[in-house]
């Protein structure tokens, strides 16, 4: 009898289907790898098992009987513990307190027992004893630890819940090889004890090292489950992307092959290091659209934000045109000709409650050191810029909130076009935008590139990224692992690179 079985589980948010039909059968004593491309639904599936997302439909069976998992607490009571990719630690609490937290109230007594807690945590810290590194201590607040140490604490916390079913969602992204080896030893021991483990990772070598079976999800549906011994990386990637290995490239919309002939470098980045960015170097030529791809959150956005000067720390060399970028602030980046458009319009773009005009002119005003603003003269310039993107609006004086998401984003792009930048940084710019506006936006971007602008594009939609980029840099763990050119720009190659050993 399977330990856990999901049959036809689904979840939708409004019109978006996050998971259409999730099936999963988890046996005792196995490491079950869950794989899928970005947005395929694998994290929704694991969140349903963790109890933090309630499915709309489908059946969950635990040890043969039908169960509902309405909360993480209920999941815990069923013997399920989760390693959260974004970690679930309290940064002001000590290592011991964090490890013991989930089981704190379960054991009797009103008062905490320091020695008891330390003793309870010890067996879960012990396997990592040799790889903990400097500054680790039982009483150290978790917020003081390094990223890899925090990840180890999250692992220990998951282990300390002593569940029967583990979900590990990207547990090794910050760990070094020795730390991973310790973790793998622990996993093998758990497996031998008959525990069930769901394992999500972007490191293919680990997947084949520890995994027994793999379930692949594509576009919200479970497409296959097979034994890892009977399959290969190629076959997994083919199933995951639904593409053949050497398959034809997605025809890019007016890809510009002539670009390479006039290599006027607009942006040169060397050894960029910032939070989430691990020494990234690349060059971007005039007229080129360079895409940033890979699994979500591998440093694509972080590079763009670091270039724009919003990261708290940054090192490395950045040259825009012929000048070296000095200050680490958006102001300095704007002055050197960088522009940044984010998909999170509410946070990074729209000036809420103000008119369309006021939302269009600020960069122009900043760059031209305008002291007074005349709505009439600015209005005509703004209208021109908005016209270039075919923005639909009633009047410049209507609030920006009167526009659809797509048109709001066009206003933001127009803002930059009023004083054209050298390099445009696009951070998932089409998030929450309708298809027509997307197409329109990319047509304009292609025109801008043809006029000599250089564009960096990160998109969370793989198809959009592959279609619109001349080249694609694939990110893994804050580094670029591969560059895809020409016919290589396929989902297959993208994921092949994304899952390559880090």
């Amino acid at each position: 009898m399977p330990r856990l079985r999901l049959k036809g589980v689904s979840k939708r948010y409004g019109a978006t289907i996050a998971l259409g039909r999730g099936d999963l059968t988890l046996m005792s004593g196995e490491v079950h790898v869950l794989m899928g491309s970005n947005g395929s639904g694998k994290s929704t599936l694991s969140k349903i098992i963790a109890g933090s997302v309630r499915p709309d439909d489908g059946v969950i069976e635990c040890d043969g009987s039908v169960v509902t998992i309405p909360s993480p607490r209920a999941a815990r009571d069923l013997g399920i513990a989760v390693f959260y990719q974004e970690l679930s630690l309290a940064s002001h609490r000590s290592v011991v307190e964090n490890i013991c937290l989930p089981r704190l109230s379960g054991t009797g007594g009103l008062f905490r027992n320091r020695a008891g807690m330390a003793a309870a945590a010890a067996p879960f810290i012990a396997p990592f004893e040799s790889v903990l590194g400097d500054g680790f201590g039982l009483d150290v607040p978790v917020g003081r630890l390094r990223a890899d140490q925090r990840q180890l604490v999250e692992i220990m916390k998951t282990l300390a819940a002593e569940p029967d079913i583990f979900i590990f969602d990207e547990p090794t992204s910050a760990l070094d090889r020795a730390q991973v080896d310790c973790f793998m030893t622990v996993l093998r021991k758990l497996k031998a004890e008959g525990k069930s483990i769901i394992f999500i990772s972007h490191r293919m070598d680990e997947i084949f090292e520890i995994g027994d079976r793999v379930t692949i999800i594509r576009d919200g549906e479970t497409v296959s489950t097979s034994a890892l011994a009977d399959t290969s990386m190629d076959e997994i990637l083919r199933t995951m992307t639904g593409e053949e290995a050497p398959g034809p490239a997605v025809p890019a919309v007016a890809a510009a092959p002539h670009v390479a002939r006039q290599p006027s470098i607009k942006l040169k980045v060397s050894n960029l290091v910032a939070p989430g960015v691990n020494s990234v170097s690349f060059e971007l030529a005039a007229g080129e659209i360079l895409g940033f791809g890979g699994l979500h959150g591998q440093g694509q956005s972080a590079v763009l934000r670091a270039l724009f000067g919003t990261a708290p720390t940054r090192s490395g060399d950045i040259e825009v045109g012929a000048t070296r970028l000095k200050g680490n602030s958006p102001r300095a980046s704007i002055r050197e000709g960088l522009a940044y458009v984010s998909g999170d319009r509410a946070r990074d773009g729209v000036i809420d409650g103000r008119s369309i005009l006021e939302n269009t002119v600020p960069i122009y005003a900043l760059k031209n050191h305008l002291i007074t603003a005349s709505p009439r003269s600015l209005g005509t310039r703004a209208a021109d810029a908005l016209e270039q993107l075919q923005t639909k609006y009633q009047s410049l004086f209507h609030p920006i909130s009167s526009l659809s998401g797509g048109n709001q984003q066009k206003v933001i792009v127009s803002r930059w076009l009023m004083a054209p930048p050298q390099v445009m940084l696009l951070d998932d710019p089409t998030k929450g935008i309708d298809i027509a506006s997307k197409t329109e936006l990319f047509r304009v971007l292609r025109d801008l590139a043809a006029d000599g602008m250089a564009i960096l594009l990160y998109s969370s939609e793989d198809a959009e990224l592959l279609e619109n980029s001349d080249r694609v840099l694939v990110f893994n763990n804050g580094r670029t692992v591969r560059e895809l050119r020409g016919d290589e720009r396929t989902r297959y190659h993208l994921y092949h690179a994304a899952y390559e050993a880090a």
Partner: protein
Amino acid sequence: MSMPQSTSRQRSVFERFPFIPALGILVALLILNGIAEPRSMSYGAITGLIKTYLALMFLAVAQSFVVFSADIDLSVGAILSLVNVVVVVLIERLGGGPDSVLLACLVGVLVGTLAGVFNGLVVVGLRLQPIVATFATGIVFTGLALWVLPVAGMPVPQAFWRTYGGRIFEIPFVFYVVILLAVFIWLAVRTKYIIELMAVGDNRLAAYQSGLPVTRIRIKAFALCGLLSAFAALCIIGDTASGDPVVGNAMTLYSVAAVVLGGTALSGGSGSLLGSAIGALILGLINSFVFFAGVSSEWQNFAQGVAVLVALMAGVLVTRRISK
């Protein structure tokens, strides 16, 4: 296991005892008071100071619980007022004997706790912003207090305030209460509950994902806040010896200031109960210092405000220096 170096051990001392900067400020203020007016450091003067600010100490400790979980309660002053009039009116109705005083106090503590539970249900159950929700419930509590006792002035039996202001075995009664508060704090910081509460304040989603009963933990914090606000009310009755339906309303933000002075972050997840009690004393000493320093009456508010700002800045600077 690698041991933390001496610098990080030094840090962790401050991290474990976030009230240390507040303690420093308290000592500095005691010295300043002593310089400005040596008599202000006499046994009697200190007793008087504690007698006056004991209610604020309770209120600050009450506020700490909700602040730990990244909430805030702007109704603590109104709860205090409500309990104050409920107790005073009950004593009057029940005849004023020792039994009636005890019963009225018990009812008062119950009323305070219920008011706290009500706050918790409104904020956590209805998912309202604590700052506005408790602002509104505070007005409701004030309305109830005005219904119970429309005008200030009903006196309490002599025995009540004589006890509060008196001595037992030659030691002032309020000192026993301070010891009681200290014991309560000593016990409270050793509960498992406080670890869970801090974890909720630190990162609510993470705590939920860890399987903690976040809703129950937050409501409990509001209940504890109401309970301790009721104790603050009993202290106020002992000090003022009468009922007043708005007596505590001005104290609400003082309690928040005391919490912050005591080294607790309003963003939740870290702080100290003892620090909040010290913070309340700091506010008291600032007021007495301004008085003893001979600031003319029309400038006293101004001077008090500046002094509180200086104390806050001193606390922030010390904490920043440590965490560097």
